[in-house]
């Protein structure tokens, strides 16, 4: 999995930035050859992951930084979202499809990320903070006719 292009963004924990970042994700996934649908779903996953990093990870503390890294690899697009928060206990994420959660207002962000990406991992970083690593394969299926 050699990385051919790498771009990393760092920004303050301001939820007003998510539109920008989603648009940037669209540009990157387009450059990686994903078609309009692919760009849309990847962009939504990025939006959800970044929103979580800002709200839940950094608790909107504007002095805390979120990092969003894109790696266009030969066979996949790799996206990493880092925050300076305490991290997430995956076993405690409620299932939004559980009938008792179906009518809750929240709790669908990570589910969206998992639905739209091919792989999703959480990792607490040795230097503090947490990292969400998500990948989407640049398979035929996700790509437009002409790249």
């Amino acid at each position, binding site marked *: 999995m050699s990385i051919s292009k790498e771009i990393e963004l760092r920004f303050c924990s301001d939820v*007003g930035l998510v539109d920008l970042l989603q648009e940037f994700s669209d540009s990157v996934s387009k450059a990686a050859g994903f078609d309009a649908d692919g760009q849309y779903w990847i962009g939504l996953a990025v939006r959800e992951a970044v929103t979580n990093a800002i709200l839940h990870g950094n608790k909107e503390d504007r002095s805390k930084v979120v990092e969003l890294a894109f790696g266009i690899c030969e066979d996949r697009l790799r996206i990493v979202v880092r925050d300076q928060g305490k991290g997430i206990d995956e076993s405690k994420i409620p299932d939004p499809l559980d009938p008792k959660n179906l009518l809750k*207002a*929240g709790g*669908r962000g990570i*589910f969206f990320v998992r639905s739209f990406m091919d792989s999703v991992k959480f990792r607490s970083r040795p230097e503090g903070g947490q990292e969400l690593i998500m990948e989407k394969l640049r398979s035929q299926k996700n790509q437009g006719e002409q790249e």
Partner: protein
Amino acid sequence: MTIDTRTANGVTILDIHGKITIGEGSAEIRKTVRDLLQAGRKNILLNMGDVSYVDSSGIGELVSSYTTVTNQGGDLKLLNLTKKLQELLAITKLLTVFDSYDDEAEALASFA
């Protein structure tokens, strides 16, 4: 996001324009719906035809508007789902929760 309000056959139709997302004043629908309930208008149809983007926070907004209306004995239905919104409601199993229509006349008739 902007919301235009109109009435037809005793149903309040909210024409929603733009994004229903975090940051984009996503609480505005809930607020509008609450105001309508307070005014005794319990039949509400959300016209989603001009909604350009919905994220998980926007879905949450729709769900909590729905539960608020239902809890007060009203009806909240959806009109003109975009293809993407339909997919989002499908994977979150909310497509069976919401009554949704592609035709306004049909949607209005369903409240009768």
